[in-house]
């Protein structure tokens, strides 16, 4: 057990717990885009920066990666924190000018204009890696990955082609914090990552509910029969 302070409030935490986890539990609002309960922290978006004071030294740290420590004082809204957070938002806004999420966050922090040149080839992707991680760790398909590096780094299936590993589950769409990943459903066909998936019809209500490939994937992993899986969650 460690004891420390967040914005003057005394809090306790397990050793090794991140400052962000503790702050969220205690009801402090720290913005973040790349953090997810099931996937942990990578420190990619840098939005969760806080000020950490230890004795008479202070530093700006990413709270999602900073382990709780006895005796530290954490400030989530100090002038230094706001300055860094605004700069981060400006950079994110310059990268993804069309992302509603980033526009909203930026506005909340008073950032309306980015000083930096706007990108027009990145879509709404901030390279948070959540889609890649959820595909590999939560779904178990590992169809997605990063390609290239530096300004050319992007999320993609290998060669940008329809992937044999993709099951069309849409977990990447659900987890994407900025709405970058595109999914379309039309006439019983789901299109995602350039791949077309035939949707299965529920035999009871006759509605499309999930790609056949996804159901087959679940059947092979869980042992549940296809017949059971074909029934949609609403009719179960």
């Amino acid at each position, binding site marked *: 057990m460690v004891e420390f302070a967040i914005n003057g409030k005394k809090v306790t935490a397990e050793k090794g717990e991140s400052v962000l986890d503790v702050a969220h539990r205690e009801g402090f609002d720290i913005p973040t885009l790349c953090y997810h309960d099931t996937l942990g922290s990578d420190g990619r978006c840098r939005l969760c920066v806080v000020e950490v004071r230890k004795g008479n030294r202070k530093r700006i740290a990413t709270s999602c990666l900073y382990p709780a420590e006895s005796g530290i004082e954490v400030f989530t809204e100090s002038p230094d924190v706001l300055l860094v957070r605004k700069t981060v938002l400006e950079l994110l806004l310059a990268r993804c000018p069309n992302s509603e999420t980033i526009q909203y966050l930026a506005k909340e922090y008073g950032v309306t204009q980015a000083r930096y040149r706007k990108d027009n080839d990145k879509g709404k992707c901030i390279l948070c890696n959540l889609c890649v991680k959820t595909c590999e760790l939560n779904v178990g398909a590992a169809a997605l990955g990063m390609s290239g590096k530096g300004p050319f780094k992007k999320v993609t299936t290998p060669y940008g082609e329809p*992937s044999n590993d993709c099951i069309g589950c849409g977990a990447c769409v659900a987890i994407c914090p900025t709405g970058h990943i595109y999914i379309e459903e039309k006439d019983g066909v789901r299109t995602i990552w350039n791949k077309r998936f035939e949707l299965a019809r529920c035999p009871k209500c006759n509605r499309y509910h999930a790609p056949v490939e996804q159901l087959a994937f679940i059947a092979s992993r869980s042992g549940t029969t296809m017949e059971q899986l074909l029934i949609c969650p609403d009719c179960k």
Partner: protein
Amino acid sequence: MEVDAAVINTIIDKYGKDKSYLLAMFQDVQRQYRYLPKEAIRHICDMLHLPFSKGYEVATFYSSLSLTPRGKHTVHVCLGTACHLRGGPNILDTFERELHIKRGDTTENGLFTLESVNCLGACALAPLVRVDGHDYGKTTPGSVKKIIKEYGEST
């Protein structure tokens, strides 16, 4: 280009099927085929029980690995500080004009791949050109033509 599974398997076995040698395997494949064929990446990933997407990540991350067929000769034009000041960009322009390709590309006849590098560590020889590991120092647009001729004729 056809990928021979036996050749790839030999490379994989050389490193004891250990996935931490993925990059070394890719380099060996590249030495064999002068690029990384898609089938080779897929085959290696299958053998090492790695997702194809991870292999693709590694293959696209390193600039020494190429996913498209490379030329027989690789021309590196140095654009480090010293070479830059002594006319490196001019040398690169000349190569681009003479070979009718942009940097990073390969000539249609598959003879040359043109690349720029940020420093080859031989600044006294600026502007430096390295072809297949052979250095040409103090190059001029004139000597560029000679270099192209030398390698063009030898094949």
